[in-house]
């Protein structure tokens, strides 16, 4: 997936002079997750801009440049540091167009790496995606495959709205097919990643991988799970979810973030609201245990959703 993201940025920078990237260690270092390796030498320091450790300035600066016609990509080294820039994301980027009656746009992409599972301790392991999805005015995208990552990032860069683009740190190594030819993936469209008839698993990002593994296991026992990948948390596309649910009448929602007030809460209420007549079993949520993530590996893993948790939840709704 690293390669796919890197290609998307590279191609968009080649295509549009107004696109540039800024953030901590994106230039000389080549990106802390090596996404912008080689960019500095190719595009130069004007378009690949190393910044001070100043997240409010990175996002705020990105907003300003976007308002006057540039298409900046502001990289936050990890999503945990977005909290330092929260005012700019929430009070500025998300509201600029609306508050001034549509006079201004903020065509800004905020790229941020999120997710747990790497023993980085409580402050560096969060999956706070839903927090950003809470705010109207922002678009929130979190791909689960290299194909979607590239296509969605291109759409994000071309979007006239601020987009929070969340990459999961443990997905960079994942492989998947990415076409040679130019393509984009629309923001705000969910997708059936795996067809099935017995149960609907709704998920996104890293948990797509976990859910797919769970579906493989279930398949061996003759249970066919259909997996709907949300891909975007805002705007949220419920159509494929509802369509699938009306077919299977059972759902498990799998997310890496904490359960309370999470993606599972949102999706399950919407299913109850829109497809109550089709409900054959209480909808289940699989999510992170409600504690700050510990450093110790075994403890950390026990708090994160695992394949077995998904398998178990599916069996409970069947």
């Amino acid at each position, binding site marked *: 997936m690293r390669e796919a993201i890197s290609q998307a940025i590279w191609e968009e920078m080649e295509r549009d002079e107004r696109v540039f990237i800024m953030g901590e260690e994106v230039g000389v270092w080549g990106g802390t997750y090596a996404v912008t390796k080689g960019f500095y030498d190719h595009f130069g320091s004007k378009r690949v801009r190393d910044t001070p450790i100043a997240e409010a300035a990175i996002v705020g600066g990105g907003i300003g440049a976007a308002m006057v016609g540039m298409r900046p990509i502001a990289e936050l080294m990890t999503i945990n540091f977005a909290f330092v820039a929260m005012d700019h994301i929430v009070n500025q980027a998300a509201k600029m167009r609306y508050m001034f009656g549509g006079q201004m746009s903020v065509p800004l992409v905020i790229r941020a790496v999120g997710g747990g599972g790497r023993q*980085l301790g409580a402050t560096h392991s969060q999956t706070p995606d839903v927090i950003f999805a809470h705010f109207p005015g922002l678009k929130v995208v979190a791909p689960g495959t290299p194909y979607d990552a590239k296509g969605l990032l291109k759409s994000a860069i071309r979007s006239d709205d601020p987009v929070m683009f969340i990459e999961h740190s443990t997905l960079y190594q994942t492989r998947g097919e990415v076409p040679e030819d130019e393509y984009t993936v629309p923001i705000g469209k969910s997708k059936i990643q795996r067809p099935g008839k017995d149960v609907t698993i709704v998920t996104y990002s890293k948990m797509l991988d976990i859910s797919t593994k769970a579906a493989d296991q279930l398949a061996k026992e003759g249970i066919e799970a259909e997996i709907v990948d949300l891909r975007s948390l805002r705007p949220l596309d419920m159509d494929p979810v509802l369509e699938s649910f009306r077919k299977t009448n059972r759902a498990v929602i799998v997310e890496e973030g904490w359960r309370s007030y999470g993606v599972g809460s949102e999706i399950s209420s919407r299913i109850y609201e829109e497809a109550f007549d089709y409900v054959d079993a209480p909808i289940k949520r699989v999510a992170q245990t409600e504690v700050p993530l*510990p450093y110790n590996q075994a*403890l950390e893993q026990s708090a994160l959703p695992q394949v077995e948790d998904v398998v178990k939840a599916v069996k409970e709704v069947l």
Partner: protein
Amino acid sequence: MPGVVVYDKRMLVPHSGRRMVISALRWASIGAGVRVDLLLNRIMQLFIATEGNSEMKKNDHLDLYHQMVLIRRVEERAAELYQQGKIGGFLHLYIGQEAVSTGLVAARQPQDRMITAYRDHGVAINVGIPAEQVMAELLGKATGISKGKGGSMHMADVEKNFWGGHAIVGAHLPIAAGMALGDQYAGNDGVTICMFGDGATNIGFFHEGVNLSKVWDLPVLWVCENNQYGMGTTIDRASAVSEIRQKAEGYGIPNERVDGMNVMEVREATLKALEFIRSGKGPYFMEIMTYRYRGHSMGDPERYRDSGEVKKWQESDPIGIYRAYLTKEKIAKEKELDAIDESVEGEIQTAVQFAESSPEPAPEELFTNVYAE
């Protein structure tokens, strides 16, 4: 004419070749001023000797030397254990910067609080957390100083007035101001000693915390460990002024640059600074010049600097400089120092054994300490 003062990994370099580095020569910007400063320091210390306990006995020196060597070895072993996959997450080593935390902690009184960033193993050792508990934390064991739940970046020992290792750059600066506010409010005479990197001085937290400390004349000693880089970004590429102490100037806080490769200079400057703050004159700011020999964290490709630069700094090694000082001033003999080096080897072995044989945290530990009740 500064000599070459290395501290070789295995102590194979003949000690006779070592000479004390006249550190003031290293930074043209401070020039001769520091020498005068130093003299004044010494004179001042005669006055405050009884109160500030600035006179060091031989054993105090040996203790400091021991701390510095212990930090170096803990870090070297940690690097190995990381490579063996026994330590996970991020690991930021303190090698090269030992004199900074050692000098600071040597000058503090028990009521003075320490708080620092994620590069925290040095302070942990200096405040007296046993190497066993440091190692155990690195290995994520139940016996670690943070019960295996914090890891490398989050060590603290509140009983020793060490308030942590903090992993969000700059976030602990306003917190330090707050701790100082607490002490001021309660009428305590403790000073909060807050350490942070050069890179941290570019984030808003820094400016808000430092400004507040002056507005309220809080008893806080701001200590910028200027190791020239924030990850791979040199100061001049990230900071509008490359002399960090000028930022304190902007907030009206008295400040100075200190040679961070010389533990005695750090200690002396700190004693003076603490005295100033304790007398009720408000915050003080030290920019301590230092260098990290290893990458920012494990796995840093270090594309941003060449090995020659690292080598040059290794030639004024903080442990080497201190060693040279101790022998030249006839405070300790080479043999005694060698004996300390050797004893540290044993300590490290014990610490690693302790850590490796310690139990993992119990599964229930996942749920403890989330709330007070």
